[in-house]
């Protein structure tokens, strides 16, 4: 009997392993590196042993048989960079047709062939938060991606352990698209708040009607009629229930504070503010009531509400105890987030550890994955980058990037053409700098491109 149980359990284990074996996991021993652990200081001349995608040991003179060994003497090893605000690898970004589109999921439109993923890996970025755009007061559900470049299956990129997140947006974008563009609410910042509050109030009613139905179902012989099913509102219920983290596009302090109050009224604590150019004005409130702020290092003045900005923002927020990260929101900036973090240090005199936290453990906290990634600790997932030069030096160059212990970028094996998919007819494929103007644009101007600000007139 005991034997049978044992056999059954081992079969079960096998099944679990097979189920988990969908994405590749690697083993590697990195030796003699200067390890920037983020959470435990800098360890000189230290080895890191990765087994089956997990950091097993950090120490000196580690050995392992049958494992690739990389000598990183004189090089820096840091955790994979995490971008808390990105739109790389998405076929569509904005379902800009309704002020609330909480039912849409970015997971549905992930494009694993986007070479932008490889470019991000070449910049040491191992995780990006693929977000809905900022056209709607409540946008779509985002997806946290691990940059397992090379698979044609979008699901292989999903970080399945990551909690659900959703995009919100305040200010000029939702009011321009819906108010000015389509003549519907929200037309003003007040309207944005009203849309969000109405959504949550509706969610409370919706939850009640389904609770009533489900309770009635349990009664013997009862024949209750199912209420209307609506994923849009159900998702808002999930936010109220604390199952989804809000990531809110925002600039102005008054609006940020207003949304903090809205969240407090509805008992919501899982909220991160994105961009937050005026965050420095409400830093204590952000520290007290939110999961932090994800900011640009020095990107502003691309529209009226983004003029009051400062390169000291990240430092002020950090010193006020706000969990702060620096994000890219761009397929170009994502390649050098370590430079972006360096700017915060240049202006705000943050120390190295504080600065590197802006692009590692802090965004991990904001995405709800800090127990798995974001620092070099035994037991964490082996998302790692080897740098030539300290990553906060302007001369820093990423050498190798690992996700789950698998090497996805190596500067010495960096072929000219890293595209996964190519056109069967065109040698030079067209690049669409702007979404092509089909019919029915209805005066809604374009508000997102996946390119660097200095190349094109980028608007957020």
């Amino acid at each position, binding site marked *: 009997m005991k034997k049978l149980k044992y056999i059954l359990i081992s079969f079960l284990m096998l099944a679990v392993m097979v189920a988990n074996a969908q994405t590749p996991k690697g083993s590697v021993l990195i030796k003699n590196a200067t390890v920037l652990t983020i959470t435990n200081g800098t360890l000189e001349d230290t080895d890191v042993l990765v087994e089956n995608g997990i950091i097993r040991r950090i120490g000196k003179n580690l050995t392992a048989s049958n494992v690739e060994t990389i000598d990183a003497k004189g090089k820096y090893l840091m955790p994979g960079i995490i971008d808390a605000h990105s739109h790389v690898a998405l*076929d*569509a970004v*904005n*379902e*800009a*047709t*309704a*002020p609330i*589109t909480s*039912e*849409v*999921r*970015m997971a*549905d*439109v992930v*494009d694993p062939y986007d070479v932008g993923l490889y470019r991000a890996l070449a910049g040491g970025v191992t995780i990006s938060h693929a977000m*809905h755009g900022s056209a709607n007061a409540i946008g*779509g559900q985002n997806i946290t991606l691990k940059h397992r470049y090379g698979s*044609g*299956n*979008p699901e292989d990129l999903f970080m399945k352990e990551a909690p659900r997140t959703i995009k919100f947006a305040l200010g000029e974008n939702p009011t321009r*698209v*819906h108010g000015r*563009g*389509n003549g*519907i609410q929200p037309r003003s910042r007040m309207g944005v708040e009203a849309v969000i509050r109405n959504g949550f109030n509706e969610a409370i009613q919706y939850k009640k009607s389904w609770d009533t139905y489900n309770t009635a179902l349990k009664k013997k012989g009862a*024949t209750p*009629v*199912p209420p*209307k*099913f*609506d*994923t*849009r509102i159900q998702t808002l219920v999930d936010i109220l229930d604390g199952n989804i983290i809000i990531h809110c596009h925002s600039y102005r302090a008054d609006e940020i504070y207003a949304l903090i109050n809205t969240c407090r009224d509805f008992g919501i604590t899982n909220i991160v503010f994105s961009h937050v150019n005026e965050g420095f004005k409400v830093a204590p409130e952000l520290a007290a009531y939110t999961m932090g702020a994800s900011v640009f290092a020095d990107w502003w003045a691309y529209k009226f509400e983004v003029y009051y900005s400062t390169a000291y923002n990240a430092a002020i927020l950090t010193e006020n105890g706000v969990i702060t990260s620096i994000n890219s929101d761009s397929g170009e900036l994502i390649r050098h987030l370590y430079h972006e973090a360096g700017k915060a240090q240049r202006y705000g005199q943050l120390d190295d550890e504080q600065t590197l936290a802006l692009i590692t453990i802090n965004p991990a906290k904001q995405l709800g994955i800090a127990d798995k990634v974001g620092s070099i600790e035994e037991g964490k997932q082996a998302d790692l980058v080897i740098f030539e030069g300290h990553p906060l030096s302007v001369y820093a160059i990423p050498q190798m990037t690992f996700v789950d212990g698998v090497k996805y970028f190596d500067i010495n094996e960096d072929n*000219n*053409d890293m*595209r996964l*998919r*190519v*056109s*069967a*007819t*065109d*040698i*030079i494929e067209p690049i669409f700098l702007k*979404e092509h103007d*089909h*019919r*029915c*644009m*209805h005066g*809604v101007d374009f508000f997102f491109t996946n390119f660097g600000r200095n190349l094109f007139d980028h608007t957020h």
Partner: protein
Amino acid sequence: MNMNPKLKVFSGFLFFLFFLSYNPLWSQSDPTGERRVTGTYAIKNATITTSPGNTISGATILIKNGLIEAVGTNVRIPNEAQIIDGDSLYIYPGFIDGASSAGVSKPADPERPSNFDPSNPPDENAGITPWRNVLDNFDFKNSQISDWRKSGFTVAQIIPDGGMLPGKAAVVVLGGNASTNILAQNTALNAKFRSVGGGRGAYPGTQLGIMAKFRDLYKNAEYSAQHQRLFASNSGLNRPEMNKTLQAFYPVIDKGIPIMFEVSNDLEIRRALSLQKENGFRLVLVGVTEADMVINEIKAANAQVLLSMKLPDDKITKAKTEDLSDEMKARTNRAKEAYENILKQAGLLEKAGIPFGFTSMGGKNSDLMKNLKLMVENGLSENGVLAALTTNPANILGISKFTGTIEKGKLANLVIFTEPIFSEEAHIKHVVADGYIFDYEIKTKKAGKGNGNGENGAVQIAGEWDYTSDTPAGSSDGLMSIKKEGDSYKGNITYSNPSGSGTATSEMKNISISGNSLTFSFEVAAGGMSLEVTVAGDINDDQFSGTMSLADFGSYPLNATKKPNQSKR
């Protein structure tokens, strides 16, 4: 109804009398002169492939009133049969098009209500019209129907045009004009990942919204069906809200009909498969390309496949790499590999044991045989092609009981070639659809010499040509001027400007001449879009006779005459 049995018989007799005297089939005269002398045909002594892999030679097919009456080497031919001599002819089951847009027009966009809210549009304004029947927007007399029949197709499932849920499909036989030719209607619910207006006009505007909207509609249709069942068997319940969009899903939920999802690449295939996995409907993937990335997933989901018969332009195979930089050389080679990979898709599906059919959507009938041959050269078996044109789509459409093979009792749907189907010189001489015989003129290629047009037997196309073309919008004319430059030709074509008055000029592209047949294409700008027009035809002396086809609109005759007294160059 309680009727005296005698009266019942009497009224039945009356009805019969009425029928007898008014049914034109039995009428004494036929003022139109269109009625056939006989519906009985015998095709004698032909090589007949009754189904993929099964061929009998020296065999006869007897057709009677639309059905195959007999097939074999020992068939008695009745006196009333019209005999077609099948010596040296090769007969195959008529082709079946798994999904076609031939003859289908797009319903007019509904007016937007004055209180139109793009975030919550009426279903009809959002491309959500699953209650529509494609037959309401189908014209059997459209030239596309005869074009595809000319290529061997005898049955097609026609697909409605519109937004994300355009409506329901129907199966038609490409038979004679006297019949409605409908074999079945409401055969599948159609879906696609394209919204009306393609953007931000109304919800849902992108694939994000389409995926979400689809899920909600499906779920609510399930709840709505549940409500209706409850209401029917209980009292004291609120009445169910009748909603034609949700009701249109009921046969899908009951698994009576599949959803046919139009897909344009592997990622869209995955999206359709994930919707199927979540909801459990029967799925037919329409327009499959890039299947190699998802073959296991398609198999696991037991989804049915209609492969696109369209292949990409082969211009990359002609790209010269000698003078290119290493980088460009490498890029060109990758593009070539990508092209070759697309040609392999059909063979890969066959190898994986997925019994796929074809869809003509987006394709041109003039490319059909060329593309099929390319697929064969790249791994698809010849029997695999035949199966994909006949038995597989018959199974996918659920019509194999009455068509798809040449057997006694099946619809008389045949395609008759002058040579075995895949040989170089094979031409379609007749197509039999629903027992109607359609004859096609075989243009024998003239030997180069004695053409009279040019030196060394080559057709001389350089010069100015006056042409006329006939379209449903009327007859139009213009000028083609062709110049020879080196080994290739360049030219311009004029036509009446579709967006305004006067004439417009376009460059003639891909001018190619082989034997006496000339092909070229040009682009016409109309309504903010660029339409590609391809022209193909034969030159005899100073006359060009051919057709011009506009990708999705059909093909129309185009004839040209070379202006006399032009100097040869």
